[in-house]
C-alpha cells in the first residue's frame, strides 16, 4: 500500500472512495468468480433478468407438459393411457433428464458449482447419443435432407466439435476443477442403466401426428375421462377439425389468439422458448471459441501475427453480417444448426478484440513470464494460466452476444428466412401486418414482448457483470 503515492487513485475526483480494508485473517479468501457472482446478484436488475431466463428455461423444459394436443392422461376403450408421454421426443426426454440430474447435483455441498456444471455436461454427453440414434436413422432414411444430403451429418459433426470445445473452454478450463472422482462415478452409475434402457426401448414418437384425433375422440365419446395439458394445443396443431380458427383475436379458448394457420399463439410462444435459448448459447459458444483462439494467439504473439489478425478482424468488422447471414440461409436452407453456426462465425470479432487486449497486457506480467521460464508448454501457458485471468471481459461480451444472437434469429425468422417447421417468435410477428392494412396486434405484441424481455434480460445481466468488473462507471 505504501509503494507508490496513490492518494489520488484512492480519491478520484467525482469518484467514490475505495477504502482498502485490512484483510480479516479469519475470513476465507473469496474467489474472483464468487465475488463477481455476489456483486451481480446484489443488483435487482440482474435478478430480474435471471428470473426471466429461468422462466424461459422452465418453459423450454416443460413445453410438452404446458402446451400439447395430446392428453396428459385419458381413459379410453383400452383403459388408462398417456398419449402425451408417448409423444415425447428425444429432445424432451433429454431436457427432463438433465433437469433431474441438475436437481440431484444441486444439494451436494462438497462439489462447487463449476464441478456440478461439468458433471451435468457429462450427463448430457452420455445420454444424447443413446436418445438421438433413432432420430438420426430416421432422418437419414426419410430423405428430408435431400436438398443438401450431407447437411445433417456436417451439422452434427460440427455441433459435437463445438460442444466439445465449449466444454473445454467454458466449463473445464477457466475453472480447472479437478478431482470429484466419486461424483463422476455416480454420474456414470446413473447414466449407464438409462443408456441401456433407451437402447432397448428407443424414444421414438410417432412420425405422423394427427393432433385433432383426441378432440374428435372426445367429441365422439370414445374417451371416458381425460386430463388435458394447461394449453390443450400443440404448436403445430392447426385445428383442422374446427372451422375458421385462423387469426382469431385473444379470447376464451385461445388466450393469446391464433395465428394464420390456426395454431394457438400461446402454445407456439411457449415452444419457441427452446429456439430462443439454444440459439443464444450455442452460437455464442462458437463465437467465443473462435474469438478466444484468434484473440489469444494475436495477443500472445503480438508483432506480425497481431497485425495480420487485426486485418482479419477489420475485414469481419466491415462485413454487413445480416447480409451474409441472409445469403447463407437462402442457399443452405433453413436449418437451425446452420443458423447457429453462421451467427457464431460472424460474431466472434468482439470477443477476439477483448481477449487480444487482455493477453497483450497479461503477457508482460510476471506470472506468465514465470510460467514460460518454468518450461511449461505454450498451450498450458496460454489456456491454463492466461485465459482464466483474461476471460472476464469476454464473459460480459458473451452475455451481450447471447442477446444479439436471439435478435439475429428472430430477425431472420421475421424476414421469413427462419425455420419452417418449428415455432419462433420472430416468425409469428411476421404475420402481424396483413394485407389491406389489417393489424393483428396479438401476433405482434406477445412474441415481440417475449423477444424484448429475453434480449433485455441478457442485457441486464451483461450490464451487471460489466459493472462488477469495472465498478468505476456505476
Amino acid at each position, binding site marked *: *500500500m*505504501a*509503494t*507508490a*503515492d*496513490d*492518494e*489520488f487513485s*484512492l*480519491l*478520484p*475526483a*467525482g*469518484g*467514490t*472512495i475505495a*477504502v*482498502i*480494508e*485490512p484483510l480479516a485473517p479469519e475470513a476465507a479468501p473469496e474467489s474472483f468468480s464468487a465475488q463477481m457472482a455476489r456483486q451481480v446478484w446484489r443488483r435487482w436488475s440482474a435478478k430480474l433478468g435471471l428470473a426471466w431466463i429461468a422462466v424461459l428455461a422452465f418453459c423450454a423444459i416443460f413445453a410438452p407438459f404446458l402446451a400439447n394436443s395430446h392428453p396428459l392422461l385419458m381413459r379410453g376403450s383400452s383403459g388408462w393411457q398417456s398419449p402425451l408421454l408417448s409423444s415425447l421426443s428425444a429432445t424432451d426426454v433429454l431436457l427432463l433428464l438433465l433437469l433431474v440430474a441438475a436437481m440431484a447435483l444441486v444439494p451436494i455441498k462438497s462439489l462447487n458449482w463449476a464441478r456440478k456444471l461439468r458433471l451435468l455436461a457429462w450427463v448430457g454427453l452420455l445420454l444424447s447419443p443413446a436418445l438421438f440414434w433413432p432420430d438420426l436413422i430416421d432422418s437419414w432414411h426419410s430423405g428430408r435432407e435431400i436438398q443438401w444430403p450431407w447437411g445433417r451429418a456436417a451439422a452434427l459433426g460440427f455441433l459435437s466439435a463445438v460442444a466439445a470445445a465449449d466444454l473445454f473452454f467454458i466449463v473445464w478450463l477457466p475453472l480447472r476443477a479437478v478431482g470429484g472422482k466419486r461424483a463422476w462415478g455416480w454420474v456414470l452409475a446413473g447414466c449407464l442403466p438409462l443408456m441401456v434402457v433407451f437402447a432397448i426401448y428407443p424414444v421414438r414418437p410417432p412420425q405422423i401426428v394427427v393432433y385433432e384425433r383426441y378432440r374428435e375422440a372426445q367429441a365422439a365419446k370414445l374417451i371416458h375421462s381425460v386430463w388435458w395439458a394447461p394449453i390443450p394445443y400443440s404448436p403445430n396443431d392447426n385445428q383442422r377439425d374446427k372451422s375458421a380458427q385462423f387469426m382469431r383475436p385473444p379470447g376464451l379458448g385461445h388466450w393469446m389468439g391464433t395465428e394464420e394457420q390456426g395454431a394457438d399463439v400461446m402454445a407456439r410462444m411457449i415452444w419457441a422458448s427452446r429456439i430462443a435459448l439454444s440459439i443464444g448459447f450455442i452460437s455464442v459458444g462458437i463465437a467465443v471459441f473462435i474469438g478466444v483462439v484468434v484473440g489469444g494467439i494475436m495477443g500472445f504473439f503480438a508483432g506480425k501475427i497481431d497485425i495480420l489478425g487485426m486485418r482479419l478482424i477489420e475485414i469481419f468488422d466491415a462485413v454487413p453480417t445480416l447480409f451474409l447471414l441472409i445469403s447463407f440461409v437462402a442457399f443452405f436452407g433453413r436449418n437451425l444448426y446452420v443458423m447457429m453456426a453462421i451467427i457464431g462465425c460472424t460474431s466472434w470479432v468482439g470477443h477476439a478484440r477483448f481477449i487480444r487486449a487482455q493477453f497483450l497486457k497479461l503477457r508482460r506480467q510476471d506470472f506468465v513470464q514465470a510460467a514460460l521460464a518454468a518450461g511449461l508448454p505454450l498451450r498450458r501457458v496460454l489456456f491454463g494460466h492466461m485465459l482464466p485471468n483474461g476471460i472476464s471481459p469476454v464473459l460480459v461480451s458473451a452475455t451481450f452476444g447471447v442477446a444479439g444472437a436471439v435478435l439475429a434469429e428472430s430477425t431472420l425468422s421475421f424476414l421469413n428466412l427462419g425455420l419452417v417447421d418449428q415455432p419462433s417468435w420472430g416468425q409469428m410477428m411476421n404475420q402481424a401486418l396483413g394485407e389491406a392494412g389489417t393489424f393483428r396486434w396479438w401476433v405482434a405484441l406477445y412474441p415481440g414482448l417475449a423477444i424484448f424481455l429475453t434480449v433485455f434480460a441478457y442485457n441486464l445481466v451483461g450490464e451487471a457483470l460489466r459493472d462488477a468488473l469495472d465498478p468505476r462507471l456505476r
Partner: protein
Amino acid sequence: MPDMQPTHIAKETPLLEMRGLTVGFDTPRGLVVPVSQVHWSLFERQTLAVVGESGCGKSVSAMSILRLLPMPPGRFLQGSILYRGVDLLSQSEAQMRRIRGGQIAMIFQEPMTSLNPVYNIGEQIMEAIMLHQHVAAAEARLRAAAALEDVGISDAARRLRDFPHQLSGGMRQRVMIAMALACQPKILIADEPTTALDVTIQAQILELLRKLRREAGMAILLITHDLGVVAENADVVAVMYAGRVVEYAAVEDLFYHGLHPYTQGLFRSIPRLEGKRQRLETIAGTVPNPAHFPSGCIFHPRCPRRNGDPLCAAEEPPLRQVRPGHWCACYHVEGYAQAPQTVPQLSDRRVEAEAAPEPIL
C-alpha cells in the same frame, strides 16, 4: 478548532494559513477522516515543505486549499484556510475560481496525464491567461510564449503548437509550471512535482522552482515525500503523519534537532554518505488506514519511545510549541507538558531568499 492564542508571533502576517483543517469523506462504510487538525502557515516568498509518507493526507490537505476535492463525498468538518485573512472555505464557487490559477496556482504529480491530450499546449496556457487577465487571444499568445521562455523552453512560439503527447515528462512539467506562472499567482502549490520524473530532470525542475521564487517572489507550498528535496528547497517544514501535523519547524532545526519520534525515524531511514556504514533503520509497522486510525496518539502503535505509557494510547497530543520556533506533538518530548499550544508560524527564509530584493507588492 482549539482556542489557542498566537504567543510566538512572527514579524509579518502569513499569506496562507491552515488552521485546524479537518476533512472527512463519506464512504459506504461510514465517515473516514484522512486529514485532521492540520496547522501550518506560509509566508510570502517562503517555501513550506509538507513532508510525509504516501497516504498521510498531505495531498488531500493541499487540494483542500483550492477546494478541488470532490464534494460530496468529501466534507470540511472543521477548521479554516486563511488566504490574506480571508477564509477560503467560506468563499463562493465564483470567488474560488478567481483565486484558482489567479492567486494560487497548483501543479501536480503526474505531468503525463495532467494536460488535456486533445488541445495543444498553447491553447491550454492561453486559457488560463484569458481567464484571469482578461486579454485578447493575440496578447494571451504572446504571454504564453513568454511564460514558456521563463520555464526554459526554447523556441517557445513554435512549441505552443505542440500537443502534450509530443513532449517528454520533464517538458510537460515545465509546461504545467508555465501555465501556473502565466497569471503571476502569489502562491504555487507543487504537489509532488518531481516524483514521476527522472533524477536529472527532477533537479532541473527544482532549480526552476527556486529560480521562480527568487525572481517572481512567489511563495511555494511544496508537497513531497523526498527529504532530499526538502533539504535543498524548503525554508520551513511541516511533517505529516496519518493526517496530522506532528512537527513544524525551520528546515535546519528540523534536520538537526528533530523531536518527534516519527521525524527521527524518517531521518534514520535515509541513507547517508558520511560516517560509518550501517544498516538502514526502518520504522516498525505500517501506516494506518484512514478507516482504522488508532486511538490516542496516532503514532503510538509504532512508537519506539512510548514504553507502554497509557497516556499515548488514551489521548491524542495536540501540536505544541516546545521550543521557540519549534512545534511538536509528542508527550515524550522534553518540556511538552508545560509548552503552550500556539498557532504554528515561522517566517524564516533561507539566506538566498533573504538576499533577493524585496518585491513590490
